[in-house]
């Protein structure tokens, strides 16, 4: 590769990075280019900018998210999106400005029009109070401030393990709506099964709707259910 070709390639990569900034900024109030330019300086290291794009979004004066990932591909179609990989230690902030979720994902998509962030492959969303959501795929919707699972989800709370086919977490209220094939195992070995429930993480209360079953072991927790609170968070 000649020097000119290398420069040309660098310019292309820089344009891709700038494109990502634009996506991040779309619809997000007070997302300043100045801040982004401090984080990424294409002239400084084009390869690094390409492999570690850092985007910060703000909404109504507060920081809403902070993601770092590698850009793989930018797709311009009816619905434009950017494909990224290696989202490590991303951050989603609550309405009070406090860190609400740390996000890790193997890869994902950033949709321009809907502003949705689709997370896939080994997705893990964890909170400071010891709650961890894992599943094959999630969608974070910035406008609605919700996280929705695509596929069966596993929620590890400080006191229980919760599984369901589907979950929608409202970040504003910190309430999660779980539906279908819900299984809750608490730290005493009890197992609840049901079809619909709302989990309020701040209070660690699960409200179940409709019919349900609970199996309680008399005389102590079952051996196979060991929920180590110390392993959380």
């Amino acid at each position, binding site marked *: 590769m000649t020097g000119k070709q290398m420069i040309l390639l660098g310019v292309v990569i820089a344009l891709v990075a700038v494109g990502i900034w634009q996506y991040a900024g779309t619809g997000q109030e007070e997302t300043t280019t100045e801040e982004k330019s401090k984080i990424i300086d294409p002239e400084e290291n084009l390869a690094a900018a390409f492999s570690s794009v850092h985007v910060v979004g703000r909404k109504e004066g507060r920081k809403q998210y902070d993601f770092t990932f590698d850009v793989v591909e930018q797709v311009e179609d009816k619905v434009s999106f950017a494909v990224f990989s290696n989202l490590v230690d991303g951050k989603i902030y609550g309405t009070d400005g406090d860190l609400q979720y740390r996000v890790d994902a193997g890869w994902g998509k950033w949709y321009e029009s809907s502003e949705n962030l689709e997370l896939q492959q080994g997705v893990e969303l964890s909170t400071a109070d010891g709650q961890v959501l894992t599943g094959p795929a999630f969608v974070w919707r910035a406008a609605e401030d919700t996280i929705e699972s695509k596929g069966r989800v596993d929620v590890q709370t400080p006191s*229980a393990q919760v599984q369901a086919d589907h979950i929608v977490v409202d970040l504003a209220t910190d309430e999660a709506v779980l539906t279908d094939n819900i299984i809750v195992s608490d730290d005493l070995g009890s197992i609840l099964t049901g079809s619909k429930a709302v989990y309020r993480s701040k*209070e660690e*209360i699960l409200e179940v709707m*409709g*019919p*349900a*079953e609970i199996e*309680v*072991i*008399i005389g102590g927790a079952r051996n196979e259910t060991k929920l180590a609170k110390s392993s959380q968070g």
Partner: protein
Amino acid sequence: MRQSWRRALKASAVAVVMMVGLSVAVPSAVYGQEQVDKVLIRIYEQDANAKTTSFNLATNEIHIEPQTGYVEITRADTKLESKQVDYAQKDQRAVLYREVTAQQPDLDLAADKLTVTFDDDIYVAEGNVHLIQWNIDEASQRLDQKLSLDADTVTMDNKAEVVHAVGNVYVEESDRRIWAETMDYNQGDDMMVFTGSVRVETADGNKITGNQVVVDLATDEATVFGPVEAEFILESGSEDEGEE
């Protein structure tokens, strides 16, 4: 005459003790099993969107109150039902409210409230307690009613093997009826004690009242503590009838 009374009291006492004994025996058998001892709670609710259960995962406390349905709790061959249940897992205690019923193969119980401590195997029924014991065959099929017990509160401690009934105690068994303020049964000393304005009546008209009636099942002796008042009907075939 005295023999007749002793037979009547003994028959009533034996019947009540049999009822109590069965209450004690069934959960004990559960403990003898090697399988995991567990309680299954089923929540019945037709409205899939109606809130039925609040499960505090931090305290392991469960509040169950279906809006239109009911709750069923089963443990071995014991089945409990009610409209509302509060379950504290750390204490292994369930409190059932409203339209409470309990069933065993030979037993039916209804009450306003029932507190069950599963670890200690203690059942406390409160409010309009009505208990019926059934005769059953070898296949545990019900035959006919053996006796009934009514009281304000009935406590069955299956580990200590004692039963304590308090308030408006009324026992009805075939042709005998006993009223008292309290009834205590202790399987250890094989004694059953009725206290407080005790009245015993038989279908043939014999009546006796006292402050306390102690039935020693080991010796078949029933002792009535006074002041005692008795009214006996003479045997049929004799024209002598009167009071004593």
